């Protein structure tokens, strides 16, 4: 049997819109039926018996309510819809029905009625039975042969009997958890109400619970080791016989047993912390302030603090400053250049009048008929050294603009001049300065 997928299970519960809506009268009715069945060893109830029980419950819960029979009919219907009561006779309308409490109803009522906290007696009984049961299953596992025999003699008992016993221990553990919470609440309530005079009662409660937990933990530690040893023996046989189902079932029981063992240790640790805390409180707070005056004085101090301030002082040594790691200093060479006599005697050079030469060449080009800046520049540049072409291009444009009337379009076209230059072109529209 594989564990159901939680997501799928939740989705299916949501799809079916399961819900429980039980009123006090319903719960009391179910509790009455449960107790009656227990006392008279009844497996089911006749319809009249249900109605009688409801009327009795109604007298207690809602005395003076009108028409209890009609209310009983509605209550039975309501509980059947919620799967708390099931009709078990199958006679339909032929005769009055016979009803039984469902497993769900039993669980709900047991929660309210049964005092199922783990005690030394109940745990010893449960672990003893479990040990005997596991020994039987182990003996069966040693004898059985074949998958069907394994299922009948090993897997079945492990799932049902052993599973129920382990679940029983776990259920009682939860009961004890609830009891501990109640004890904690009770201690707080007793101190709130009686303060100093509640100290002895608080200590007694603490000690009782601590002793119970210690005893239970000792039993659990001792017996769970034994259970696990038996279960591992069964598991080894299952693995040898290659019965996967049995192996998985044993593994699940081992995990369950581990969980109940872990519970004991965890609860004892938690209780130990709580125990110490409460004892410290009783010693340092309650016994030192038997009149419970400190709380009131502290409350007054806090309320008046804004007008009568004081500030506690605490040490505040700054952290040790961590210095940067020491590094060997690298001597960088001084920026310098070799000494040399950089004074040269001036040389005689030919006079240069590039600007005048360019102007003359521009005039010449325009006279020869060049009518665009590109044309003029193309005619001037070949006469100049390559290295000056870029600067000369600007001077040509400058000279042309000064000496002739030029016209530029709004979008001036770019045109190539020789191979390396490209300039925005103008048109020469007048030649006043060059004529």
């Amino acid at each position, binding site marked *: 049997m594989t564990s159901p997928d939680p997501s799928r299970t939740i989705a299916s519960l949501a799809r079916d819109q399961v819900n429980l809506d039980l009123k006090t009268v319903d719960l009391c009715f179910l509790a009455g039926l449960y107790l009656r069945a227990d006392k008279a060893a009844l497996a089911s109830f006749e319809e009249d018996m249900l109605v009688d029980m409801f009327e009795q419950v109604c007298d207690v819960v809602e005395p003076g309510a009108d028409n209890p029979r009609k209310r009983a009919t509605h209550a039975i219907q309501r509980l059947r819809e919620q799967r708390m009561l099931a009709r078990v006779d199958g006679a339909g309308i032929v005769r009055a029905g016979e009803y039984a409490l469902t497993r769900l109803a039993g669980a709900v009522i047991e929660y309210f009625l049964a005092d199922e906290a783990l005690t030394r007696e109940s745990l010893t009984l449960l672990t003893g039975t479990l040990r005997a049961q596991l020994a039987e299953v182990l003996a069966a596992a040693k004898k059985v042969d074949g998958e069907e025999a394994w299922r009948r003699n090993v897997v079945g008992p492990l799932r049902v009997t052993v599973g129920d016993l382990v679940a029983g221990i776990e259920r009682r553990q939860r009961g004890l958890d609830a009891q501990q919470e109640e004890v904690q609440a009770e201690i707080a309530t007793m101190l709130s109400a009686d303060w100093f005079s509640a100290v002895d009662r608080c200590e007694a409660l603490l000690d009782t619970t601590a002793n119970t937990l210690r005893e239970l933990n000792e039993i659990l530690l001792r017996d769970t080791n034994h259970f696990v040893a038996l279960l591992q023996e069964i598991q080894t046989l299952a693995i040898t016989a290659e019965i996967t189902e049995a192996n998985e079932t044993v593994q699940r029981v081992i995990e369950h047993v581990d969980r109940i063992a872990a519970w004991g240790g965890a609860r004892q640790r938690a209780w130990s912390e709580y125990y110490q805390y409460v004892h410290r409180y009783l010693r*340092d707070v309650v016994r030192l302030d038997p009149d419970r005056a400190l*709380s009131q004085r502290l409350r007054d101090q806090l309320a008046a603090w804004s007008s*009568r301030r*004081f*500030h506690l*002082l*605490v040490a505040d040594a700054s952290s040790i400053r961590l210095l940067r790691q020491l590094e060997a200093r690298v001597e960088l060479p001084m920026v310098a250049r070799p000494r040399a006599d950089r004074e040269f005697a001036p040389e005689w050079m030919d006079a240069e009048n590039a600007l005048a030469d360019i102007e003359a060449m521009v005039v010449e080009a325009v006279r020869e008929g060049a009518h665009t800046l590109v044309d003029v520049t193309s005619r001037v540049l070949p006469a100049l050294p390559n290295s000056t072409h870029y600067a000369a291009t600007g001077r040509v444009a400058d000279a042309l603009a000064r000496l002739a009337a030029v016209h530029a379009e709004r979008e001036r076209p770019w045109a190539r001049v020789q191979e390396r230059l490209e300039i925005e072109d103008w048109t020469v529209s007048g030649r006043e300065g060059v004529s």
Partner: protein
Amino acid sequence: VTDSTFHTLEAAIGDEHFPEVDLMLRRGRHIGRDDGTAYDYLVDAQALLEPFYRRFGCELVQQSDGYFYLLPSGDRLGRRQLSAGEMLVGQTLALLYLDPATLQHGGLVGREVLLQRLSGLLGTDVLVRTLNPRKRKYDERVAAETVRAQVGEALRRLADLGFVDIVDGVQLRLRPALMRFADPVRGLQDLNGALERLVARGEALLGEASTEDDGANDEEPA
């Protein structure tokens, strides 16, 4: 004859716990039973460490509630006074520590409980004005947010000082060191007399915080 593990100061300082405990004490932390072996070490080495710290102008104080702290009295070790926020939160936590209802959860309280108690005891207006002394007018929503932030900051600092442990960010485990906030009212003498005694011992300063610096007041060594 002493039953201490340590017979010389050298042995006490040579113990593996010393560096951590020493740093914690110098940073103002209150070391209590909840600190486990650090507290046990201090109990063991107390007789040797008291004169040791006295040479630094500090007193190693052990309180009957079960915690140690270092109290600088000279100018050799820095000290600071707790801010207004830390004082208010500390006193409220001390009240919660005394409350039997806290016992039910083993000394754990929620931040919300602290804020509710603080606001219930002081009133929102006083609380806002004490934590924001420079603001004359305030918007209720913004003020509430500021108070929550300041209380959070005070809690963080009090946790560093060992007054409280912050568990999972929302729960507070109250520690016995909180009883320092109740020191002025623990004796039978009147509050003023008790405060003067605390001031004389270098445990507290009276009056407004000298400088406000992000909720903490650093005091120059005397």
